[in-house]
């Protein structure tokens, strides 16, 4: 059921003609993914998915679409000329990855083992402290870069 939501949402994202409809389909896809994380016994990841993707990135993308759409009078053709080749390449990739996933002996457990939130918190500040700090720095750089890029040039001249 959730897999249908994920794959159907994803297909709707890449095939719908109107960009806003694609963004809504993307939110459905991300919500189904959050449900699947919860099903896998990882509620912390599900919560992060809802907060980051459903909350932040979806709103960011919707804002970007609304800032940039000049009006829905003329919707141009959504695909490049090379769309058939893209279909073939994507199907080959899916087939190879699915074949590898099925044919590899994983020695997997029969049931999903949940993630303890306390253990994740402890690991994040002990074994994975360096990646955690690097991510903090990366997010700072991204904030500064986004402010710099989104600034209008005229304001720049007015400030000088």
């Amino acid at each position, binding site marked *: 059921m959730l897999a249908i939501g994920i794959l159907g949402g994803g297909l709707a994202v890449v095939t719908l003609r109107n960009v806003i409809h694609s*963004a809504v389909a993307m939110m459905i896809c991300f919500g189904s993914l959050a449900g699947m994380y919860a099903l*896998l016994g990882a509620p912390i990841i599900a919560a992060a998915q809802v907060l980051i993707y459903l909350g932040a990135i979806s709103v960011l993308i919707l804002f970007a679409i609304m800032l940039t759409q000049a009006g829905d009078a003329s919707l141009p053709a959504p695909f490049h000329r090379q769309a058939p080749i893209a279909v073939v390449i994507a199907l080959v990739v899916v087939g190879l990855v699915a074949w590898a996933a099925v044919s590899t002996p994983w020695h*997997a457990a029969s049931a999903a083992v949940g993630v303890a939130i306390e253990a994740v918190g402890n690991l994040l500040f002990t074994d994975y402290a360096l990646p955690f700090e690097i991510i903090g720095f990366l997010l700072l750089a*991204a904030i500064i870069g986004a402010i710099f890029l989104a600034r209008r040039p005229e304001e720049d001249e007015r400030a000088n």
Partner: protein
Amino acid sequence: MASLQGYLIVSAGLFGIGAFGFMARRNAILMLISIELMLNSVNLSLVAFNAYIPGAHNAGAIFALIVMAVAAAEATVGLALVIAIIRTRQTPEVDEYDDLKE
């Protein structure tokens, strides 16, 4: 079919959809959304491995959180770049960005 293979196949399908969208769509924002789909599919496989492979010690969950943070940073900067390009070129179609060809 709640097994590791099932989750991995869903993840592969989502990755393929994202790859197709990135290669075939003409809208710059849609290309960014497709990149997000691909990152999400990788996250799904990481969490699935973490749940089903014994001895993972929650590494997959932490990798997934790190990937989410990096994806958020990427989306921020990518959308700022796209908005800047659209502001100068007045179109979101990537076919129209052909200044270097002339």
